[in-house]
């Protein structure tokens, strides 16, 4: 057997069943070649997620996108409802993908607009606000992801979904969500929106106290949420156990979280044994 001449076949035969499955999965998700798949998987010690990271972070592997296609895509979705001041001039305000465009996009992607994957997409695009993409955000984001057609976009979705399972990425996406979901020009996030986002996010990364948290806020706080509170909540959910036994009163938690702990104890939801 001359392995040099039939490298792919050679590799496949030499892999075990489990590895073979992974290679196939990888290829399906990334659309890469078998060789690239095996390379990436080997480099990540046969962990799929790690392999994805490696694959996508290697600049020379990045698929070159066709900028013409990207323009076409953008134009398909960009805002059609116009209040054009001067005929023929480019009104920068409208040169964006707005709600209608996004609905259409989701349709094309066969994805519910409420699906959390759209948040991940927005994150990749570094979108400033929800429900709109600027030209730079859309095109730049897709370039980065190596997408220039709807099919490729669709294919990428499951990878993006998987990114939520990664601790570090989840945290980035979570913190990104604050700035993205709040009103432009506001410093804080409206309570209703915050609650919606929390429900969405903590469906991905289960936190049993999320419902109590939302209820508590509606009953006791009823005001907007600050960025610090938002980001510290994730730390709280990650580090403090459900019996609150390792909750440290001197732990510099935001006062809202201190009040939440009080609320839980007062209402008997959690029995704290004081050490």
């Amino acid at each position, binding site marked *: 057997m001359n392995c040099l001449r039939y490298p792919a076949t050679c590799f496949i035969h030499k892999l075990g069943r489990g590895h073979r499955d992974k290679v196939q999965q990888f290829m399906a998700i990334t659309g890469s070649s078998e060789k690239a798949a095996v390379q990436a998987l080997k480099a990540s010690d046969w962990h799929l997620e790690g392999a994805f990271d490696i694959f996508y972070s290697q600049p020379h592997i990045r698929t070159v996108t066709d900028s013409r296609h990207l323009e076409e895509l953008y134009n398909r979705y960009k805002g059609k409802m116009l209040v054009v001041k001067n005929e023929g001039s480019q009104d920068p305000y409208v040169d964006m993908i707005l709600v209608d465009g996004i609905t259409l996009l989701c349709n094309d992607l066969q994805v519910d607009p409420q699906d959390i994957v759209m948040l991940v997409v927005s994150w990749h695009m570094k979108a400033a606000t929800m429900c709109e993409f600027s030209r730079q955000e859309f095109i730049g984001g897709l370039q980065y992801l190596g997408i220039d057609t709807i099919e490729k976009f669709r294919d990428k979705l499951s990878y993006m979904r998987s990114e939520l399972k990664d601790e570090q990425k989840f945290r980035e996406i979570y913190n990104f969500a604050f700035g993205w979901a709040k009103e432009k020009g506001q*410093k*804080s996030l409206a309570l209703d929106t915050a609650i919606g986002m929390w429900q969405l996010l903590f469906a991905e990364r289960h936190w049993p106290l999320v419902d109590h948290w939302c209820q508590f806020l509606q009953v006791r706080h009823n005001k907007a949420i*600050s*960025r*610090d*509170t938002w980001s*510290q909540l994730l*730390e709280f959910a990650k580090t403090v156990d459900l019996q609150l036994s390792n909750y440290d009163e*001197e*732990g*510099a938690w*935001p*006062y809202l979280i*201190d009040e939440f702990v009080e609320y839980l104890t007062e209402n008997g939801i959690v029995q704290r044994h004081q050490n």
Partner: protein
Amino acid sequence: MSAQKKRTFKIEAFKHRVELDPKYAERTWKVLEHAIHEIYNHNASGLSFEELYRNAYNMVLHKYGEKLYSGLVTTMSGHLKEIAKSIEDSQGGLFLEELDRKWGDHNKALQMIRDILMYMDRTFVPGNHKTPVHELGLNLWRDNIIRSGKIQTRLLDTLLDLIHRERTGEVINRSLMRNITKMLMDLGSSVYQEDFEKPFLEVSASFYSGESQQLIECCDCGEYLRKAERRLTEETERVSHYLDVKSEVKITSVVEGEMIANHMQRLVHMENSGLVNMLVDDRYEDLSRMYNLFRRVPDGLSTVRDVMTSHLRETGKQLVSDPERLKDPVDFVQHLLDEKDKYDKIISKAFNNDKSFQNALNSSFEYFINLNNRSPEFISLYVDDKLRKGLKGVSEEDVEVVLDKVMMLFRYLQEKDVFEKYYKQHLAKRLLSGKTASDDAERSMIVKLKTECGYQFTSKLEGMFTDMKTSVDTMQGFYANQYSETGDGPTLAVQVLTTGSWPTQPSAPCNLPAEILGICDKFRTYYLGTHTGRRLTWQTNMGTADIKATFGKGQKHELNVSTYQMCILMLFNSADQLTYREIEQATEIPAPDLKRCLQSLACVKGKNVLRKEPMSKDIAEDDAFYFNDKFTSKFIKVKIGTVAAQKESEPEKQETRQRVEEDRKPQIEAAIVRIMKSRRVLDHNTIVTEVTSQLQSRFLPNPVVIKKRIESLIEREFLERDKNDRKLYRYLA
């Protein structure tokens, strides 16, 4: 024939040794031995010192020192044994005397013997490591007399018995005691300690233990302490008379231990006579005694101090929570001052101005004064009362004294900023109603507050005084400016207040009577003419008016009323009867104020210049008011209802507190920023501590509020959390 030998003269020693005939040694010894006998038999006068000395000298010289020494030992011991017997045989009370006498004799004999044997003492003794004669004599005395079986116990028992008798009131022979104990001391301090002092202390301990048990059952605290003190004095005296001076501290500590240390708790807490009772009744002598006795034992003073502290805190707590007391703020504060005075006196008269007691007093006051969150308000009311009238006729020094005492209470306050707010309100009312009794006293108080809290505290207060003064000047200018237009019209006295210096009062405008309006406008024109860019707003809820009124039978009275009341009364110049609604409409005075004014004009005996129908106490919307022709008063000048500073009503109180809390927020933030700017990175708890300590001269910040302020500063990007340690904060330049 032999040559003649040349011979030089030589003097040679004897070629044969001049031997001291051993018999000679024996003979010499016998002489000395005999001498010793004679000495002990009080027959020394027949002896020749020189001869004896020479004999002793020769013996030593001829190497018979050993014989001499041991002979001495034997002879002396022999005599001492006889002496012992005679002492043992002495009867009862004569025992000590006999011992004393024999001791004296022995010392004399010893002296002589030593003199005789001085050569031996100096040459033979050191070289042969023997005990010197004098010491030898003492040791032999010790061993043969003092430590002799029969004498030892008897001696100790006798001594202890005598001491016991003296303790129970008998008189004993102190100089004899002195001699005996001195003897023991001379024999060596270990003899004194072993043979006397140690057992003495043990016996004393059990004596005092018994006595203290007895006394504590039947005496009250003061009596007990008196007795304990007496015993201590007694023992000290005993030591000075017939014991070794080093025994003093030992015996006193036995007494202290048995009588005081062992019963401390019981004494201090004794019902009806313990420490608390003494404090309450100001029993300085008893307290002083307790202090002096307890300071001698470990934890004595801390016991006293702790009981005093908890009593003080308890009574203080009751004082500040007693609703009856709180009804009269001035009285309340007076009680606090009296309590402070009382304890200051106790500490100075009975507790030796002990600093630790001072500190306990201060911390107790600080504790309970702050239990009641109205304390700042009440203290301000007290000062207000004094500055209004309370200090009339009081000398300048006494004024200072009162104010200084109030400042002491002020220092205890944790919420000094609340006090500041109230003081401002009360001062404003005083100044505007002209109720200050003494300008000097007012200024003195400001100076004291400034010294205590810094210039920022008082700058606004001083602004108020300035406004008052400036207003006077302005009025002078105004009237100088007026041509003779005033004539019959009302005279106006205006106080112009700078907003910002004075506590803000919302003032709803009311309709001034035409005559007043006229002159008010004139003033406004004059003022704005000289001060451009300013805005004047009449504060009709303040101010007074003097009105001349003529009643039914022609009686004239001068009524002193508030501005609102003036507006109401002037209406009656053009109408004899007015309903409540008509008055309300005409004056536009806010309803609650209007009702109060009408009540004071119509419902108060002696001040009812108006008549109301129906005659009820409350004002209803349908009531009708009439000018009361029948009004009479003894006084020509009648004053109707001035607003004095009163305790705030509930809603007013809430409002003030709210404002104070709001004012605190920026102060806390400023402190946080200051601290973070210099430290750059700090953890949460340290920030809280630092902020608290920076602000403590004004108020005690709530840690939760500090946390909220930190979060607000994070929000506004003055600070951020450290990326790795969420408990750390960083300053963002």
